[in-house]
């Protein structure tokens, strides 16, 4: 029956991530944005938290935990409450690992997954393409058969960890529909382009990937990946991160508005400001509930494309509004980089421009 209470385990996980996000992530977020780098030591800490490898089989160095999209959403919200770029940075290896757990062959898992169990390991996925009308319903990147091989051609962008990743899951259109392929970084024809420069998520290094006649064996194709489902998971994670970002904006603006005085009273006592804050509070909860609903459907095996697309779409536009309003509440202080809100606005604008970047 309908229930919004976390399990004790989920509460424990959440509290752990809350501490991590507030102690390790939030304090360095501004510096990471300005310098464009994230300390690699964070990956070690993320490993210690089991962020990536806990669902691996014990044989591969994991704990064999059953993954839950709801728990994943809780984690993603809290991490992104700390910082979106760092959150994406830490979770990016999941793009690869979970694709193999869910849809890889025994051989593929044995080949790649133990590295994730042994320590921080960089692998990633190439989903987005540099087109204004990109979405995951059809890829311009193609894969065609050539004997026992597949030949991949196309352009990808916004690939996290690309500078260091050992391998990528690449999504491409085949004559039989979309499919996922493992492409190792040293494959001929794969060119990792120069680091991208974006308005936001500047702390996270992303790169374009160019594939020109990249030939990979049939054994690099993920045989059992339910791609639409995998993308649904990605949308839910996106929405959860948007929720965390929006909540960060709301809480900061709320606290500021109670402190900041104008005309003799805290600006929060002015209806115009108070109503903006009320709207922000409602939207944060709305995003979270839509996200959890989609996540719950994924966990229970129900169809979830409608719900995850809805959550992701709603979260993208709502979070932007929340961030924009937070900046407005801060006025001039919102516009300068001594305060975090302008960073959050830049990051928030990312959600509707890179659907599919993140996944559980």
């Amino acid at each position, binding site marked *: *029956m309908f229930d919004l209470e*976390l399990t004790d385990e989920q509460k424990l996980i959440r509290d752990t991530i809350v501490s991590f996000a507030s102690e390790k992530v939030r304090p360095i977020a501004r510096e990471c944005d300005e310098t464009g780098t994230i300390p690699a030591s964070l990956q070690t800490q993320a490993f210690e938290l089991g962020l990536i490898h806990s669902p691996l089989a014990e044989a591969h160095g994991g704990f064999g935990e059953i993954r839950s999209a709801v728990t994943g959403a809780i984690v993603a919200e809290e991490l992104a409450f700390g910082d979106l770029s760092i959150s994406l940075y830490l979770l990016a290896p999941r793009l690869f690992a979970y694709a193999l757990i869910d849809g890889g062959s025994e051989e593929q898992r044995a080949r790649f997954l133990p590295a994730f169990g042994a320590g921080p390991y960089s692998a990633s996925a190439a989903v987005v393409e540099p087109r204004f009308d990109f979405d995951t319903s059809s890829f311009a990147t193609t894969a065609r058969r050539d004997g026992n091989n597949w030949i991949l051609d196309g352009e990808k962008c916004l690939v996290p960890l690309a500078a260091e990743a050992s391998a990528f899951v690449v999504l491409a259109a085949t004559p039989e529909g979309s499919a996922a392929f493992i492409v190792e970084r040293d494959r001929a024809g794969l060119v990792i382009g120069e680091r991208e420069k974006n308005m936001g998520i500047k702390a996270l290094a992303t790169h374009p990937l160019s594939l020109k006649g990249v030939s990979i064996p049939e054994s690099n194709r993920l045989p059992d990946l339910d791609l639409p489902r995998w993308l649904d998971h990605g949308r839910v994670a996106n929405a959860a991160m948007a929720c965390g970002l929006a909540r960060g904006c709301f809480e900061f603006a*709320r606290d500021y508005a109670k402190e900041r005085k104008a005309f003799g009273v805290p600006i929060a006592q002015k*209806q115009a400001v108070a*109503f903006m804050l009320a709207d922000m*509070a409602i939207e944060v*909860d709305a995003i979270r*509930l*839509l996200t959890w*609903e989609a996540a719950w459907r994924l966990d229970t095996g129900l169809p979830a494309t409608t719900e995850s697309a809805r959550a992701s779409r709603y979260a993208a536009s709502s979070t932007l509004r929340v961030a924009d309003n937070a900046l407005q509440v801060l006025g001039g202080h919102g516009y300068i980089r001594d305060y975090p809100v302008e960073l959050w606005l830049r990051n928030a604008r990312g959600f509707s421009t890179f659907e599919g970047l993140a996944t559980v």
Partner: protein
Amino acid sequence: MISFDLSPRIAEMKNAIRSLAEQAMRPIAREFDEKEHEEPHEFQNLMWSISGGRAFGSSDDAPNEGKSSGPREGNLGACVTIEELSWGDAGLYLSIPNAGLGGAAVMAAGTAAQKTRFLGRFAEGQPKWGAMAITETHCGSDSAAIQTTAVRDGDDWVLNGTKIYCTSGDRALRSGGFVVVWATVDRTAGRRGIKSFVVESGTPGIKVIKVEDKLGIRASDTAMIVLEDCRIPADNLLGVAEVHQSTEGFKAAMATFDATRPLVAASALGIGQAALDLARQELAQRGVEIRYDRCDAHLSAIERDFLDAEADLQAARLLTWRAGWMMDRGQRNNLEASMAKAKAGLAVTRVTQKCVEILGPIGYSRQLLLEKWMRDAKINDIFEGTQQINMLIVARRILGYSSKELS
């Protein structure tokens, strides 16, 4: 553990009410919109016989009260039920005989004896209504400014004043029901002076002087009521004797809204869902299918509008369910109830307006019920706390401000 599943009991009820809505409400919805002020007797009798007079959504609807056979889910159940009834027709839903808002007030603020005395009648005899009279010509949101007076005279209270916008007020007074009247025992005392009094049908000195013509929900009666030296027994003052001396009376009465706002939100959801269902169906007949997993560049303007409207409504639904669920768990849900009401009231206004637009000349026509739903919808942004009042409550709660600090 987080779950969005409705319990089998609620799911079953939902299906049953949906059938009822399709068979008993939709076919007469247009008729009782056009014949404003006429009674849908047949429907009312049917509902009276089905419900046994229990208000959908008053907390006496909670199952297993005091039993141990399962968690309470009466409020959530009521949200679901009311959504389905309003999917059928919001005006007809509001015309259903039951203790209504007046009953909710008795439940929230009355003593055990008062509950028995006033609510017992809803389990027997002819259809009856309960109502609540708060608003006055010069006070809407500002309940503390009520001018209607209650003066103690021996064993009686004597009430004088005029009330407007009393939902089901006419039916309550014609049917053997009652109206809960908010009045002040001391005009200088502000909200401390506000108490609620049960005025029973048949009491001399209370009468309906007007039933309003409205934009929508025309099957529901909205009465203007005058109290002229209306004399009621002393213990028709809701609550124990001490409420007389404190603000508890006012607070208890206001707490009624924590229970009823999610139900208003639920009614809004039903109207909005009806509009979306119809728009989807009309579009599908014309070859337009709504796709979910596409970016804007691949969507038509209409598809995108539809997706946004549907998402807005679903967000409102989940906020509403949360507020009902919290009530079932005995948690204070004042913030969440207002969040749900504010979001749902606005969402249904926009959703129905948008659906009319999407269908063009057909949407604007009275051939379909859609235009009616747009008219019905707007009341949800107004009654039981306007959009603005609910935003104010949300703001106060999240900021920790009193109504003095944020007014």
